[in-house]
């Protein structure tokens, strides 16, 4: 499935292939109000990766519910709405507004966006605050709540356990690592925002490690992501313990990344005689 923020609201990719083949669609982070995001430049390239500081640009939850989700509903695929906010109240208000819509199947709480001052990363780095957001959102939500964890923490396992105890139905990891690049011509950071979120193949080893650790420590499913470019990368995540795998940056490099990875996994299962891909989940530690 495509990862949040890397697939817009799906429209662009629908020009390339039928979105119904996807396992699920995670749409771009949605906030209470319209947000115009950060100034440009918003992306920079890094070795085997990229930095982004989009800054949660989105039309706000009302418009998303009114226009984007009903459009996506034409495809026969679960819709996961990514929710961001700067206070617990904001998270809850967005959740409440979403609860009036039938056009979504799960909520992914983004407590890990590194690109805006109040993008929720304070919730993503402290187990108690994270647990509080999740508890309150669970009360307001009519669909399962997935918590997206930040890798920029000392102890990812206690973050995951804290949100599990608070009622999270699944965790997804990893969001981006906080990074920076400096332009040698100007000697200033390339991104207008200074820091940005690092994604792509460069972060895959960190993501695999965190999935491996978290999936052994919690009972809820783990959605793995971070640098998945090929079916082999997805297999690594499954073996590490992810029950599902999301694809972010790869969609930018190759708009057909998702269908190609899905096809690759099918071929792998066929040639290896694997009936159900879930057999592979956690192979690295089982």
């Amino acid at each position, binding site marked *: 499935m495509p990862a949040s923020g890397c697939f817009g609201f799906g429209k*662009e990719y629908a020009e390339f292939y039928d979105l119904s083949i996807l396992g699920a669609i995670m749409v771009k982070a949605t906030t209470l109000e319209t947000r115009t995001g950060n100034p*440009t430049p918003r992306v920079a390239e890094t070795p085997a990766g990229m930095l982004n500081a989009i800054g949660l640009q989105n039309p706000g939850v009302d418009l998303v519910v009114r226009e984007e989700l009903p459009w996506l509903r034409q495809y026969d695929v679960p819709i996961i709405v990514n929710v961001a906010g700067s206070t617990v109240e904001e998270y809850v208000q967005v959740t409440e507004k979403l609860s009036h819509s039938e056009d979504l199947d799960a909520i992914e709480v983004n407590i890990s966006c590194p690109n805006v001052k109040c993008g929720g990363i304070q919730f993503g780095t402290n187990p108690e605050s994270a647990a509080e957001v999740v508890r309150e959102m669970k009360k307001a939500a009519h669909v399962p709540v997935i918590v997206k964890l930040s890798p920029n923490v000392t102890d990812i396992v206690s973050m995951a356990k804290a949100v599990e105890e608070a009622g999270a139905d699944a965790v997804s990891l990893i969001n981006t690592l906080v990074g920076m690049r400096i332009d040698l011509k100007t000697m200033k950071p390339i991104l207008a925002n200074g820091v940005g979120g690092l994604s792509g193949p460069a972060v895959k080893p960190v993501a695999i490690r965190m999935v491996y650790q978290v999936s052994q420590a919690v009972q809820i499913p783990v959605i793995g992501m971070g640098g998945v470019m090929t079916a082999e990368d997805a297999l690594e995540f499954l073996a590490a313990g992810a029950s599902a795998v999301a694809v972010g940056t790869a969609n930018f*490099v190759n708009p057909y990344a998702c269908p190609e990875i899905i096809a690759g996994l099918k071929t792998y299962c066929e040639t290896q005689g694997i009936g159900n891909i879930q057999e592979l989940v956690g192979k690295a530690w089982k």
Partner: protein
Amino acid sequence: MKRWTILAHQPVARQMMQLDLQVDDAFAYVPGQFLHVRVTDGHDFLLRRPISLCNFDPDTRVLSLVYRVGGDGTRALAKRTPGMEVDVLGPLGQGFPIHEEDGHALLIGGGIGVPPLVELAKQITAQGKTVTAVIGFLTKDVVILEKELQMYGDVFVCTDDGSYGHHGRVTDLLTADLLASVDRYYSCGPLPMLQAIVGKIEAKVPGYVSLEERMGCGIGACMACVQWTVDEQGNKRLQKICKQGPVFDGREVVFE
């Protein structure tokens, strides 16, 4: 996404390369659109580079791009040799609209903003209209596509250091007489140049600017390449340069 074979790949000025690609039969485009090009197939350069379509020969189906070897990515691209394939996405974005009613168009280009004007000049003149081009460069060594543009009309060249053509900026050459003689302008180049052009022309002549920004996806999904515009009714909008652009109405762009 296609893989096109390199037919030729040669320097045309200092740090300027022309890349000729054999394209498929279905290929068609509007001048001002761009290709989103992978410079290698590995992960070293993850992001594609936007490069304007410069010239297309429908008979041989050879498409030419002209690009500057500036950073590491274009340096890697420049190493690729004829016979190799290049992974491209596109044509993408909205090109320059050609207006039936126009008689004389003014093309203004700066540096690597000149390439898209070549195919534009060709298509405008093919409709029986005339074009005049004003193109500016840093210095003599990096002047490109002057001869190609001369095939379609008058070309005025200037350089910042006076080493070739007029000594000065393109805006110096936008005389009142010239502006009075044209129905529309089409411009492409660095942002400060575009801003100066729009400032100088004001609302006297309608026209278009083609903008540049660092891109992620190139197809409108990542929101990396946004630009504020404001239309006649005063509606402010955050537009994606890769999808709603790169070409915008010069009067609508909000220059900061």
